[in-house]
């Protein structure tokens, strides 16, 4: 079984996203370790990008902060390698296609393998362009995580067939961000996935409160939280480790009680 899928066994998974290098590499490293202690199962680390067209203002701002500090993919590879001395939980990169492409697809995936990255989520590589990366991902044992959206409808089964790791179920239309209410046809989407695959489904986009996370995890296999954490990091900067840890612990509790 895939190491990422393993993270879902016997429990609802909590998946968190933070932007690599925001506010700096050292803090990102500390944040990952603190969130691990607080019960996160899978880590998504963003590679900052100049043109994050699938992201809302909170994550855009994090990208700007990280790029302002000069954070590069190389810095993040080194950071993950250091983290691998301390944690074994799955770590995936959330990155736009161009960051991989410009680095060199082959070279990028080789460095993923060598530094201990387990997978990639690439929001601007839909099913139709999957082959852009599938060959190199397979070669280096990197899981390419697929996304489904509320608009996917009859596309869901096609996407789920052959998907690996987990399915990233986008809860709402639009870009990443915090929403008061997460409106979604997630159960319908998940039953479509289930009709062709037993792959875990985790729900993301818009989730910010522990209750929202609990509710989304209850109808799926896990919840993904990004903007809500990135917002705390934006507010507290170098001092964000403790507040992020407390927030994540509350989310973990809520999911466990769900």
């Amino acid at each position, binding site marked *: 079984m895939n190491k990422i899928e393993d993270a879902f066994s016997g429990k609802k998974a909590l998946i968190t996203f933070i932007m690599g290098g925001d506010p700096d590499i050292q803090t990102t490293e500390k944040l990952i370790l603190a969130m691990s202690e607080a019960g996160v199962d899978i880590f998504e680390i963003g590679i900052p990008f*100049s043109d994050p067209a699938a992201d809302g203002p909170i994550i855009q701002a994090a990208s700007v902060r990280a790029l302002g500090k000069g954070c*590069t993919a190389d810095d993040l590879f080194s950071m993950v390698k250091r983290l691998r001395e301390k944690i074994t939980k799955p770590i995936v990169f959330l990155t736009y*296609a161009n960051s991989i*492409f410009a680095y060199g697809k082959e070279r990028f995936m080789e460095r993923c393998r060598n530094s201990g990255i387990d997978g990639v989520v690439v929001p*601007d590589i839909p099913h139709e362009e999957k082959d852009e990366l599938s060959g190199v991902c397979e070669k280096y044992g990197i899981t390419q995580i697929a*996304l489904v959206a509320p608009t996917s409808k009859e596309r869901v089964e096609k996407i789920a067939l052959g998907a690996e790791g987990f399915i990233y179920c986008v809860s709402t*239309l*639009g870009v990443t961000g915090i929403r008061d209410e997460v409106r979604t046809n997630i159960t319908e989407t998940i039953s479509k996935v289930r009709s062709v695959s037993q792959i875990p489904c985790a729900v993301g986009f818009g989730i910010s409160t522990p209750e929202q996370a609990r509710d989304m995890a209850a109808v799926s296999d896990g919840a993904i939280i990004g903007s809500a954490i990135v917002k705390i990091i934006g507010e507290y900067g170098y001092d964000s480790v403790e507040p992020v840890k407390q927030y994540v612990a509350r989310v973990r509790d809520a999911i466990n009680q769900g």
Partner: protein
Amino acid sequence: MNKGKFGEYGGQYVAETVMSSLKELEAAYEHYSNDAAFQAELRDLLNNYAGRPSNLYYAEKMTKDLGGAKIYLKREDLNHTGSHKINNVLGQALLAKKMGKTRVIAETGAGQHGVASATAAALLGLKCEVFMGKEDTERQALNVFRMEMLGAKVHPVTSGTMTLKDAVNETLREWASRLDDTHYIVGSVVGPHPFPLMVRDFQKVIGIEIKEQMLKAEGRLPDAVIACIGGGSNAIGAFYDFIEDKEVRLIACEAAGLGVDTPKHAATMTNGTVGILHGMKTYFCQDVYGQITPVYSISAGLDYPGVGPEHAYLADMHRAEYVPVTDEEAVDAFRYLSRTEGIIPAVESAHAIAYTRKIAGVMGDDKIIVVNLSGRGDKDVASIARYMGVKINE
């Protein structure tokens, strides 16, 4: 060749959320592009509303002055709204209406595409919202007001470099959040499939007319067709019907800003590398980590870090030439055409005039050049005055 690809370029590199809308658009476009009634309706709008066919004007004074090839100007500047942008916009707005959409959104750089979109939306009874980099809203304040006069809402974009690429990002974000009733009128031959193909089809009327008009005027094809290029819609429009006519040189002039050896340029073909952004694989100005580098040109319409995927393909095939033209050369050409022919060109189109000035004299007087005069320069008068250090009350 794969569907939606030009060689290795193009594709559909977008978020899953918008894939269903791209599929819907693909299907609708495939249907209506073969629908005689739709084509007749569009033809009627182009002829009776936009003023097609645009003139192919023999620039006699310019020809004599440069002392070489005979120069013709394809007068897209005389179209309704003042540029070639209306060709594409009427096509897409009509298509959106047929698809049952009630709202259109658009990005704009110089404002020409925004104005054209607002115009078509007003005509066809669609709601229109335009996303424009904040820096561009300041450079092209008059066009912002024009769009508002036409009933559109203009959103200044403050993310990133606050120019055209950021306006594209923001329009993509807006589209992903509201797909049901909204069509995104992409303004150039960029973006995910089917946009590069569809926009090219709506613009190819330029080259078809050039060919007809040239055969009538001279009884033969031109030796060169020259156009400016940002995303590349006027260039592909002018070039497309000549691609199989290998003896016709196709020359696209990109914005070299302060020079291709400085950081202040938008010369994607000269200095760019292959990357993925805005739904397509093509050439982009970027660093080794794939961060899109800020681009610069005096011309807001050419101030884009990428280029349409079909152009990337034509460049690789050596079928079209891509040459850099600086701000200084463009401004000189802007003034030159104004004084020589009494035609004030858009500063974008002035890039094509500038290159024509370089090569016409070294081509024999038995040669013929067609320059696609993609837009008129009224919108640029204030910024040219600023460039020249002339104070005027705007």
